[in-house]
């Protein structure tokens, strides 16, 4: 095949790669969300050492390039006799990384809750679980959804870095095809378009959720 060829088999390979990228991102986002909720709870602990642990986690993880983090964990895991293969390692790395970003987003959301709301909930004597599920959680979700979607979009694109630890996804698939066909611009352009479409999808889903959750009565709603 010559330069410029974008035939059906190539497209199928790229589509598969995109599927893997999206799957990795979704798995990582799901794990990271759970992890970030726990981390956020640590951020508001009454115990100073717990709060310090939170800050340490954020500084270390957020302050390390994902590429470095990915290689560190990929090469470190077998040292602990954890032979995970690249895919699990990829999800773990991405989850750990994205969790730090999510946690800061959630922490900001908790800080945005007006003090009177806390006092209302407190004065009702709500137990911590109900307080979280019924008051804090729903408010934080509404306050942070746009920033959360932002990080999700970033997570999808960040999967491309994982090709470095031999995870076969959209970027690695593209590189392999380019090595064979030398169709640099066609293939990278197509891969870029796939990333774009995935991110657009996440953005649209986020917007729809935002509309569904919009606080009623503040205007801007569809009557």
């Amino acid at each position, binding site marked *: 095949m010559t330069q410029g060829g974008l035939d059906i088999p190539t497209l199928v390979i790229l589509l598969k790669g995109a599927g893997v990228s999206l799957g990795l991102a979704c798995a990582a986002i799901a794990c990271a969300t759970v992890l970030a909720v726990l981390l956020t709870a640590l951020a508001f602990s009454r115990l100073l050492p717990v709060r310090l642990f939170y800050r340490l986690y954020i500084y270390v993880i957020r302050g390390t390039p994902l590429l470095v983090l990915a290689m560190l964990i990929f090469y470190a895991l077998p040292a602990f006799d954890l032979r995970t293969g690249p895919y699990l390692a990829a999800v773990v790395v991405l989850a750990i990384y994205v969790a730090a970003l999510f946690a800061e987003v959630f922490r900001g959301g908790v800080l945005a809750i007006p003090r*009177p*709301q806390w*006092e*209302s*909930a*407190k*004065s*009702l*004597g*709500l*137990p*911590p679980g*109900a307080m979280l599920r*019924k*008051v804090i959680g*729903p*408010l934080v979700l*509404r306050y942070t959804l746009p920033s959360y979607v932002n990080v999700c979009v970033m997570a999808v694109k960040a999967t491309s870095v994982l090709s470095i630890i031999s995870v076969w996804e959209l970027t690695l698939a593209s590189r392999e095809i380019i090595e064979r066909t030398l169709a640099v611009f066609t293939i990278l352009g197509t891969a870029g378009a796939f990333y774009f479409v995935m991110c657009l999808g996440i953005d649209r889903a986020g917007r729809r959720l935002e509309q569904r*959750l919009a*606080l*009623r*009565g*503040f205007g801007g709603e569809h009557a």
Partner: protein
Amino acid sequence: MIEIRGLRKSFGQVPILRGIDLRVDDGEVLALVGRSGCGKTTLLRCINFLEDYDAGEVLLDGQPLWYRTGTDGRRHRVPDAEARRMRQQMGVVFQQYNLFPHMTALQNVCLGPRFSQGVPTPEAEERGRRLLARVGLADRVDAYPAQLSGGQQQRIAIARALAMRPKVLLLDEITSALDPELVGEVEDVIRSLLPERIMMVVVTHALGFAREIAHRIAYVSEGVITEIGDPVQILEQPKDPTLKDFLRRMR
């Protein structure tokens, strides 16, 4: 019955409450009046432990609240779970209503009974509907706070406090944030509660309303209660010079 003994509180170096002694009997409505910054709102918040305090005691029906003195003679906060049970015996209505914006009127009112008191949902909802009807909002049960006027929101806040079946209602300047034409509907709701003889502690600037509903008025000045007694006596024959001055300014 609520008893407060020797309550003291400072914000940093600034003393806010400087030894409050007070008793509110069952069925009694007590109004706290005074200049802004005199400590009356802080006192109300201390009763519900929304503020901690430095010394003194708050007792509800003889039971000491919020702090315990340990065997080492030091004062400790009660554990959170116990504080929650104590709070459930009180209903608070705030100046700014503070309804939960993501919940309907009914959900706001049912939240406490369902999750703090474990009342089954159908029963909690029935209680909620009854209370909302009682404050004149039977037709707005599914409305969200931002769809309602300030007066309506405050009436829901009162229903939310009542839904806990509290021993005492603590009202913190509940009409101060309202447009003047909405004050009446909220005051009417409070008036309608009087025959039930619910104990109330009411912080207010509305002296006419205080005179009408309160059994006693306490005048708070610079962190102490300088005069307390029958509303007519307090408002018409004040003895404390700062109270005289306060009443002159309020007119």
